[in-house]
C-alpha cells in the first residue's frame, strides 16, 4: 500500500472517511510510525480548538444581539436610515448651534423654492434648487451612507451631502434620499430631501430645510440647548410618507447601488 497522504490522515482523525477506508488506514498506520506521528499532530491540533471556544456557547447571548434579531420590520427605511446615520455620527454635529425656526416642506419638482425667510447674505435658497450642481454630483457618484464633501476657499464654506437611500419609483426612475448641509462663516443650512434622476440629472422632488445660527451669533446663549442629532430630527418622520409613496419594491441593496454608480445609472 502506498504511503498515506496527510489529507487522508487528517480525514481519518476527523472521522471523515467511510468505514472501509478508515479500516485500511488503521491497518496501514500499524506499520507506519511517521504516519502515526502525523495523526497525533492532527488530534492535538483538533483538541486545541475544541475546548476554549465552547465557553461562548454556555454564556448568555448579549441583549443587544437579541434586540438586533428581534428588531421589528426589517428593511424598513427608517431602520436603514438610522443605521447609515449611525455610521457617520460626525455628520452635521450641531449641539453648539441654535436652530432658527425655518422649516419648509416642498413636494413636487419645479414647485418653486422656499418662500420662508432665508439667512441674509451668503445662504441663498439657490443651494436648494433642482439645478444644484454639487447635489447632482454627490447623488451621481456617492454611495449611501458615505459623505460627499466640497470646500471652497478658506472662509469655512463647505458643502456636505450624504445620500441615505436609493430606490426606484413607479415610473422606473432612480430616486435617492439625502441629507445636505451648507456651512458658511456665520451659519449653516441643513436640508433633507428626495431627488429622482430624470434625463441625466437629479431633480429634487421633496425638500425640507432649516437654518442654523452659528454659536457666536446667538442672541441668547440659553435659547436653545436641544440635542440635535440628525439634521432634521423628528421632522424627518413626515418624509417617510413621501418616500413610501414614491418607492416601489423597497430600497436597493448596496451592491445594486454600487453597480448603478459604476455604470452612470443606466
Amino acid at each position, binding site marked *: 500500500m502506498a504511503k498515506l497522504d*496527510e*489529507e487522508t490522515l487528517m480525514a481519518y482523525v476527523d472521522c471523515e472517511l467511510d468505514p472501509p477506508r478508515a479500516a485500511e488506514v488503521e491497518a496501514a498506520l500499524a506499520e507506519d510510525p511517521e504516519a502515526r506521528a502525523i495523526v497525533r499532530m492532527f488530534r492535538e491540533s483538533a483538541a486545541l480548538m475544541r475546548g476554549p471556544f465552547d465557553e461562548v456557547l454556555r454564556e448568555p447571548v448579549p441583549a443587544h444581539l437579541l434586540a438586533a434579531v428581534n428588531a421589528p420590520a426589517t428593511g424598513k427605511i427608517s431602520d436603514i436610515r438610522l443605521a447609515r446615520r449611525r455610521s457617520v455620527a460626525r455628520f452635521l454635529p450641531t449641539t453648539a448651534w441654535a436652530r432658527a425656526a425655518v422649516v419648509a416642506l416642498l413636494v413636487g419638482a419645479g414647485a418653486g423654492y422656499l418662500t420662508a425667510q432665508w439667512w441674509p447674505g451668503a445662504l441663498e435658497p439657490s443651494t436648494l434648487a433642482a439645478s444644484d450642481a454639487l447635489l447632482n454630483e454627490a447623488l451621481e457618484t456617492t454611495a449611501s451612507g458615505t459623505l460627499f464633501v466640497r470646500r471652497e476657499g478658506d472662509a469655512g464654506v463647505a458643502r456636505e451631502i450624504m445620500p441615505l437611500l436609493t430606490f426606484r419609483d413607479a415610473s422606473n426612475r432612480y430616486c435617492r434620499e439625502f441629507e445636505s448641509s451648507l456651512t458658511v462663516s456665520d451659519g449653516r443650512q441643513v436640508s433633507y430631501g428626495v431627488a429622482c434622476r430624470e434625463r441625466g440629472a437629479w431633480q429634487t422632488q421633496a425638500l425640507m430645510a432649516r437654518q442654523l445660527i452659528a454659536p457666536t451669533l446667538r442672541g441668547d446663549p440659553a435659547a436653545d440647548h436641544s440635542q440635535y442629532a440628525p439634521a432634521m430630527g423628528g421632522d424627518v418622520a413626515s418624509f417617510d410618507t413621501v418616500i413610501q409613496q414614491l418607492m416601489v419594491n423597497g430600497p436597493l441593496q448596496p451592491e445594486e447601488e454600487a453597480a448603478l454608480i459604476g455604470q452612470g445609472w443606466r
Partner: protein
Amino acid sequence: MSEDVRQQIIALLPRLRRFALGLTGSRDDADDLVQAACERALSRLHQWQPDTRLDSWMFRIVKTIWIDQWRTNRARGEHVDLDSIEPPAGSNGRHVTEARNTLEVVCRAMERLPDEQRLVLTLVSVDGLSYEEAAAVLEVPVGTVMSRLTRARRRLYELVENKPATLARGRN
C-alpha cells in the same frame, strides 16, 4: 414564516458568536460581527431559500462581512505579517502547559494564519462542521477545504506547541 426564521436565528446566536470569536479573536469584535450579520440577514430574508440550511447561510454572511472588514483593515496597514514565525508570547517556560489551552494563546496563534485557513479551521475544528458542510459555507470544493485545513492545523500546532510539526507529506 419570518417570525419563525427569527427564532431560528436566535437559536443560532451562540454558534454564530463562537464562529465570530474564532475569526476575530476578540469578544467585542465578534459580537459586532454577529450583529452586523444578523442585520444583513434580516434585511435579505427573501434571499434565503427555505429548503437550504439557515446555519450555512448565516455563516456565509458572517464570513463575507469578516472578509470585507479584514480587507479594509489590511488596506489601512493593520495587516499582521503572516510569515513571521515568532512563537506567541508566553509559549516558553513551564507556563506553556497552563496557558496552552487558553483562548488567548489559540486566538493569537490563529491571528497568524491566512484568513482562508482561519475560516476553514474555525468551521471544522471549532464549530464541528463536516468538510462538505464547510465547503458549502465557503463555496469552494471539498478538496480545497482539506488542503487549507491540513496547512492550518499544522501551522497552528507549530505555533501553539512552539515546535515544528512532523515532516509534511504530500499526496501520493
